[in-house]
């Protein structure tokens, strides 16, 4: 598998809302940073706990990859995340994610999103302009 395949598989896995499938692509020393005003989750166990918390707030999560590019082991994605939040309803969050991949595992994942719409956090609504 190459870096792009790992990232595409990870993005697909979120649609299952299954923590085991989502975590299958994280390295033991991975970190996940869902937005820069959020704490960074470091290490497999902390990433797992944090993602599990996010999953509890949603009943649907589909990552639409609008654009992507690969440079060596780094994969950059422009996405619209289609999410149904339990307390809010359906949102479409536009953002970008950067993934660093070693072998068949993700070692770093940084998302660039505006994380809050009034008190509707943790995702924004809206779409790219073109």
């Amino acid at each position: 598998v190459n870096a792009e395949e790992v990232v595409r598989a990870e993005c697909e896995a979120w649609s299952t809302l299954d923590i085991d499938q989502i975590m299958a692509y994280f390295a033991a020393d991975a970190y996940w940073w869902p937005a820069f005003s959020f704490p960074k989750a470091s290490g497999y166990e902390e990433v797992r706990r944090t993602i599990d918390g996010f999953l509890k707030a949603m009943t649907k999560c589909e990552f639409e990859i609008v654009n992507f590019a690969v440079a060596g082991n780094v994969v950059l994605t422009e996405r619209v995340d289609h999410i149904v939040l339990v307390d809010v309803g359906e949102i479409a969050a536009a953002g970008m994610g950067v993934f660093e991949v070693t072998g068949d595992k993700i070692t770093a994942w940084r998302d660039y999103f505006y994380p809050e719409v009034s008190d509707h956090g943790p995702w924004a609504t809206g779409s790219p302009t073109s």
Partner: protein
Amino acid sequence: VGDLGTEEERVVREFLQATEGDQQDVDAMVSRMAEDIVWQVNVPLSAVVEGRDAARTEIERQNKRSTGMLMGSAVRSIASNDGTVFTERVDVVEIAGKRVALSINGIFEVRDGKIAAWREYFDSLDLAHQLGVDASILYDDIGT
């Protein structure tokens, strides 16, 4: 011997160089934009700037309140796919005397050697926290 990247990446790197210094170089930036550029300063919240003239006005507005990219600014990752160039960056700027290091990710669509679309993604709460202001004020006059 380094990887010089694609022609489109070169256009974007030159464009980003024009943002460096005490002030962004308006003429150098605008000269690398397509006539009908579509620029969203912060997806999804800010207004969309359409056309090179409007882009010039927006850059001039930014220059009144912010420095250009200062020492410490960096392109963390750059990659492209066809004419679409991704830049993951740290932009160090000074706004109202406060220096901030903003983690930001920009997408450029390059057509015939010019930037035809530009979308920037960042966490404006992160920026607001660094500035010590409420995030809502960041959008009062962007793109107007």
